[in-house]
């Protein structure tokens, strides 16, 4: 999209900067509290994984029982980290792409606090034994209306911005993000109404819950990640999107396919028999937009040259996320074949690994890329330490790669054991054991990486970042000197002291 503006580049930059500054409070809040929830979730994840390996670990407390810690971990990851990172990206990207400053940052910030409060109450509710027992919806039922209201107060402004944007051309990211912001409440309200408000059949309730979980992954986190990636890669690499028509095809295939997915989790359960097949087929077909987006953006990025990729934290993380998207698409195909792999993997670690591949391997990495891009613009400070970023990157990639591999391959192993009906049950459990150990270790790696990240982000939030006009680049950018060829240009100015 060419800059359709009569502004000179300088005025344009000032406009963009003012948009950034208008959003600084809500965006920094979402990213920082999101990162805090990410750390909390990973700690809970480490505890949960450790309990699979050694069930008597921390068995003293009812709050740390596996059946409570694991749902708390998942829900904190989804609603505490995932949703808030998405909100930060959505409001910033929509504002920039609509070229309008945010008019109600205070409202968004308050709603963000409300969201956090609701999620905290929800996680505490699960840990104290008041979970609802519905996967990915374990928050006690009073939390959902609060989440919905907070959500509306956060994103309505972005949709308004898009509606009243000057000019008619729209960039592909806006379609993805607008789609996500409309799909999410529709899905949330459906699940809340049909599972908590209206009486229904118990097995169909389980089916709708499975649909909700898939819809969150494929119709909220996936499009937000895709839209963000479509912005970051061309922006940072300077090359235009390889094939814009493929991008539009990717969006509409996602829109048409993803709402059908989810019921394959209930294959074999007494719901209308074709629902799991349609769900499996739709999940397999999700690989279409996944490969389309990843292929499009990876070719775009590699055109920019490996130097740019190596030096930019944003690009590194986003490209790692795109590879995660490819892996996720592959998993969609491989895990959901009803005659062969679906009966094997239906009730194994594979489900967890699949969710993590989408949530962490793709979405979270793209969000990290977005955070490394957005935060300096919003705080007027550059990242403090190349090493912190590099450590974050390497440990995360190793950790997530290990979890994905372990959970997918280990899940197949576990499933093969489960289906061997003439062997005693201990066989299946034994097969999964080594993968449980590996998962715990991988989560520990990720925990360390995110502690570095959270520390770094908090320092930025506290405005302790580098005052410089040169970005923090990795791997010897600027000839190894982060202060740039002319030396550091202190962006606070010689006469300023704040």
């Amino acid at each position, binding site marked *: *999209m*060419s*800059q359709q503006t009569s502004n*000179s*580049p*300088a*005025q344009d*930059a*000032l406009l*963009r*900067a003012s948009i*950034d*500054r208008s959003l600084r409070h809500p965006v920094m809040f979402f990213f920082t509290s999101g990162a805090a929830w990410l750390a909390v979730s990973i700690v809970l994840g480490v505890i949960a994984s450790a309990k699979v390996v050694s069930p008597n670990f921390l068995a003293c407390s009812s709050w740390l029982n596996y059946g409570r810690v694991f749902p708390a971990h998942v829900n904190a990851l989804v609603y505490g980290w995932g949703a808030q990172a998405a909100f930060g990206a959505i409001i910033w990207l929509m504002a920039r792409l609509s070229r309008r400053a945010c008019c109600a940052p205070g409202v968004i910030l308050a709603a963000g606090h409300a969201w956090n409060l609701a999620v905290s109450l929800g996680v505490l509710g699960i840990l104290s034994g008041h979970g609802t027992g519905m996967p990915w919806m374990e928050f006690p039922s009073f939390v959902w209306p609060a989440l919905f209201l907070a959500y509306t107060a956060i994103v309505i402004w972005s949709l308004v911005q898009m509606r009243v944007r000057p000019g008619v051309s729209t*960039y592909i990211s806006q379609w993805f993000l607008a789609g996500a912001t409309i799909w999410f409440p529709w899905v949330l309200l459906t699940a809340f109404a049909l599972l908590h408000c209206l009486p229904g059949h118990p097995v169909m309730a389980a089916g709708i819950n499975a649909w909700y979980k898939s819809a969150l992954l494929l119709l909220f986190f996936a499009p937000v990640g895709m839209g963000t990636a479509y912005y970051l890669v*061309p*922006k940072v*690499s*300077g*090359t*235009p*999107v*390889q*094939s*814009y*028509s*493929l*991008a539009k095809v990717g969006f509409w295939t996602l829109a048409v396919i993803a709402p059908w997915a989810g019921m394959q989790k209930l294959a074999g359960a*007494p*719901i*209308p*028999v*074709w629902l799991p*097949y*349609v769900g*499996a*087929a*739709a999940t*397999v*077909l999700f*690989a*279409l937009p996944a*490969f*389309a987006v990843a*292929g499009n953006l990876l*070719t775009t990025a590699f055109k920019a040259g490996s130097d740019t990729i190596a030096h930019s934290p944003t690009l590194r993380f986003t490209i790692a996320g795109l590879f995660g998207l490819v892996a996720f*698409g592959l998993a969609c*195909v491989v895990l*959901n*074949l*009803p*005659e062969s792999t679906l009966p094997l993997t239906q009730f194994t670690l594979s489900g967890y690994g699949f969710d993590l591949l989408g949530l962490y391997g793709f979405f979270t990495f793209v969000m990290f890329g977005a955070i490394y891009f957005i935060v*300096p*613009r919003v705080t*007027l400070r550059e990242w403090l330490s190349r090493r912190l970023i590099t450590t974050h990157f390497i440990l995360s990639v190793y950790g997530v790669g290990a979890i994905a591999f372990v959970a997918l391959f280990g899940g197949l192993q576990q499933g093969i054991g489960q289906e061997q009906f003439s062997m005693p049950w201990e066989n299946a459990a034994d097969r999964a054991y080594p993968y449980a150990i590996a998962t715990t270790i991988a989560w520990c790696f990720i925990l360390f990486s995110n502690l570095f990240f959270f520390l770094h982000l908090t320092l930025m939030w506290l405005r302790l970042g580098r005052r410089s*006009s040169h*970005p923090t680049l990795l791997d010897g950018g600027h000839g190894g000197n982060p202060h740039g060829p002319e030396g550091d*240009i202190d*962006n*606070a*100015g010689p006469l300023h002291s704040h």
Partner: protein
Amino acid sequence: MSEPLNKPDLEDSINVAETHDRLVRQAAAAAREKSLGENGSQPIALWIFLPLAVVLLVAGLVLGAGSGYFSYGSTFREGYVRAKAPGEENSGPQPKPALAAYSAKGAKIFSAKCSGCHGSDAKGDGANYPALIGSEWVLGPTERFSMIVLNGLHGPTSTGKVFGAAGMPAQGGGMTPEDLAGILTYLRNNLGNSKGDVVTVDMAKAALDISGKRKSAGKQVDADELKAEHTKDLPGDKLDPATLVLPGNLAPAPAK
């Protein structure tokens, strides 16, 4: 501040040096951004089509494995019949020797209907309830025995003693031929009795028939009626006690 430079295409408010200063201070990051360029209109590369085609193919196969689309009536596949476990034999109820199968059925009836009065060892209590072990009427002709079980008994038993004025209440209500055959066989072959024969379901059906056709149908039998009219074995083919039958309905097990 340096002097404003006069540039015709700049607004008055834009002072280049001041702008540069502001840019560096406030918009450094935004200023150095590249713009989202013209969108590429490269044709979609051929190598992308291959995985997309494979995905479409796989999804088609998945859909093909299902059936009954958009019909909400059935929660199971059309024409589904449970498959046999690979390598496993017929997993129906395991056939047992007739004596054991009939006795197993009779044991349940005994503990439900008989042991309450006659005792769990069927030896009675000497005063109110007669012993069934070693009893002439239990071990004798089966028609006589069946009449007592179905209709109850009034008056003296085979030993001549009277056990209680009311006698034994009828036990035939709701009894199926399998139940009757089971209890008769059980009492004749367990707990100390060992007659060695099986009262079959057909014989029990005949007993129910005879019991219904009694002159005083509906009333208890007594020793006189038994001696006069029910002195034979029940009609029906004898069954070798070792024959294999299915425990549920006591039917002969199908030949392998």
